């Protein structure tokens, strides 16, 4: 399975990809990830590739992803082209204004962006930022979205292995917060049906 994760530098795409990749290895498989590390981490656009099947490189081609997880709305729209025909996207509706848009140089219309995403993918929107704040901290947007995608049945991983992977990859002091966020994401998916 090829999963593309997108977001803004600092939102925890690297951790999310590590959690998913390790879950696959916990289940006895193999995984690859490809990360954006470096200058873009300072509030720039970032993506992480997660591949849990057989491949030589870590990088998902355009039109090759089975799932897009986006921690931010504009970045979700930016990466829609990575999805396979008919594949699902799970996208946070919260929008982080790029400085170029704040300075009034470029426009940024939330409705228009959501329409574009809906027209070009099979998308589930969720206000993950609101749920993250309710769970205790904005930085757990990543685990909320993993939980939501898992709850929808879009991840071919077991909840048990994801939780195990989280306990391996997340520092003890933040683990409970993240497990709570993961479960809150799952709960939000209750009653939501795949289309």
């Amino acid at each position: 399975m090829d999963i593309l994760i997108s977001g803004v530098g600092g939102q925890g795409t690297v951790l999310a990809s590590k959690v998913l990749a390790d879950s696959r290895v916990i289940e006895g498989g193999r995984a690859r990830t490809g990360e954006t590390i470096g200058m873009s981490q300072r509030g720039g656009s970032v993506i992480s590739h997660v591949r849990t099947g057989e491949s030589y490189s870590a990088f998902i081609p355009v039109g090759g992803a089975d799932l897009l997880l986006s921690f931010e709305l504009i970045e979700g729209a930016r990466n829609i082209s990575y999805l396979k025909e008919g594949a699902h996207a799970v996208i946070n509706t919260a929008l982080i204004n790029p400085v170029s848009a704040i300075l009034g140089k470029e426009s940024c219309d939330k409705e228009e962006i959501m329409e574009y995403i809906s027209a070009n993918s099979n998308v589930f929107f969720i206000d993950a930022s609101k749920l993250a704040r309710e769970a205790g901290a904005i930085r757990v947007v990543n685990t909320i979205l993993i939980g939501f995608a898992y709850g929808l049945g879009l991840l071919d991983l077991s909840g048990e292995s994801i939780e195990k992977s989280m306990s391996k990859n997340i520092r003890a002091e933040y683990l409970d917060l993240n497990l709570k966020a993961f479960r809150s994401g799952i709960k939000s998916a209750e009653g939501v049906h795949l289309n």
Partner: protein
Amino acid sequence: MKEVLLGNAAIALGAVMAGVKVVSGYPGTPSTEILESVAKFNKEGKINVEWSTNEKAALEVAAGASYCGARTMVTMKQVGLNVASDPLMSLGIVGTKGGMVVVVADDPGPISSQTEQDTRHFGKYANLPVLDPSSPEEAYEMIRYAFELSEKIHLPVILRPTTKVCHSSGTIETDENRYDYEIEGFVKSPDRVIFPSLTYRRHLEIEEQQKEISDIFSDLSFNRIEGKGKYGIAAGGVTYAIVKDIINTYNLEFTLLKVGAVFPAPDKLYDRFLDSVEEILVLEELDPAIEEQLYHRLAVNNIKRTINGKMNGYVSPAGELRFENILEIIERFTGKEFKKNKQLSSIDLPRRSPVLCAGCPHRASFYVVKTAMRGNKSLFCGDIGCYTLGYGKPLEMTDTCLCMGAGITIAQGIKKAEPDTNVFAFIGDSTFFASGMTGLANAVYNNSNINVMVLDNSTTAMTGHQPHPGTGKTMMDTVSPEIEISKIARALNIDFVERVNPFDFTRAVIVVEEAARYEGVSVVIFEAPCVALLKTDQVCEIENCTGCKKCIREIGCPALYIKEGKVEIDDDLCTGCGLCKNVCPAECIK
């Protein structure tokens, strides 16, 4: 045991398993996590790990330990090798004893670098072998082999991963088979002292060695020919892995030459490849290194083949080679079309370039200087670090940026040619220790009248918060007395040395105004810790905003945004630094 490891961590673990005893380096994307991972794997403290002050220091430390028989690794990014090239060129002549691997990470794109230079050329220039991994798994195998090879040939070996290997992870089968040995110690010999006569003798020997190593590389498993057919593709590094994915995705058949040990060229293997194909395509990022080597074999063997690659304009000379680019090139090469992407409707999305974080003290320092110098003819020389982002709108406080430490010296040159301009140089704390001090001494010695603004955030922020001599912490978890930048400046006979917190805005502006008036070299050290290391729940609050938007126009903090014509503060991003309070003319921000 199977473990998902980042390429850089795989290189680190491979080095640990190979018995590395001394590891040194200087942070630089995409190489940084190699040394950090060694430190993480070094729970027993058997390995001496250090962040050196710069790459030249790092390479010399590693060379000294290698002379004694210790296996050593030194890590850096490609531009770091420019700094370390002086010892590296000579070290090839003098030779090494304990296996020594110089890991130099190249950055096609470039993603986070000043140049798109190709370290494979450095191998050729210095007559040192270069290994070029295609995946984290291969990097793990290669680094172990690199130590063995280095000990066999008594030369340093270069491992050259690229960003897409360093920052991708693979599933590594780890083992417990850690190589161990006793360090023999330094054995005195005239061969350790470089002299013209030694260099002449060694040069002859090393040229002979190149032929032997070429033969070894022709039979090495990192270099091989796969598949069959008259269409031949030669590929190196991560490009090989992507070509394999394309071949598997579209069920293609090529004679595929994989080049992992690239210098000296595996001539005999190249000859076999050239014999077995009719049409040739070379796919490699950065320079046409494999391509030039293949042309060389055609000339030596006096045979004719068309080679499609960078040299005949078939492949772009710059930038990354992604799956999509490579697929398009292969379609051209074979005259077949494999894939049509679905058409998406179009939308103009705002770009999201990297910016200084909300609460970043560099934003405050830049704004202090901008405020102090308003209306005066001024130029601002930048340097390498997070603060290069001071270039962007709306601060626009970086007029030059060249390489590590260059800001201070470029400023001196500008001042010579343009004496009526106030010239400022901005430099970070880690960069100051890496290569700012000599430039500062030059300014004092040659009576320059420049203003040096040290942006001291107590860490190496851009590469992920590494310690440096000013922090006092080391990678061995020991503490050294902090080296104070202000004391260095005073020791260099600079009389105007002021330390100021950039968030103490009014005072900071006065200090900068005084510095600008001062005849001679002035040094202002802006001291405030990197916001990414601060844990704060504080936020600024805005009430009765008049909607003038001056705060946004002046400082461009990502926590400020406009909603229905008024400025609001994003509590998720705001750190309560209060810089915006100094900008708001209506005093709406608390």
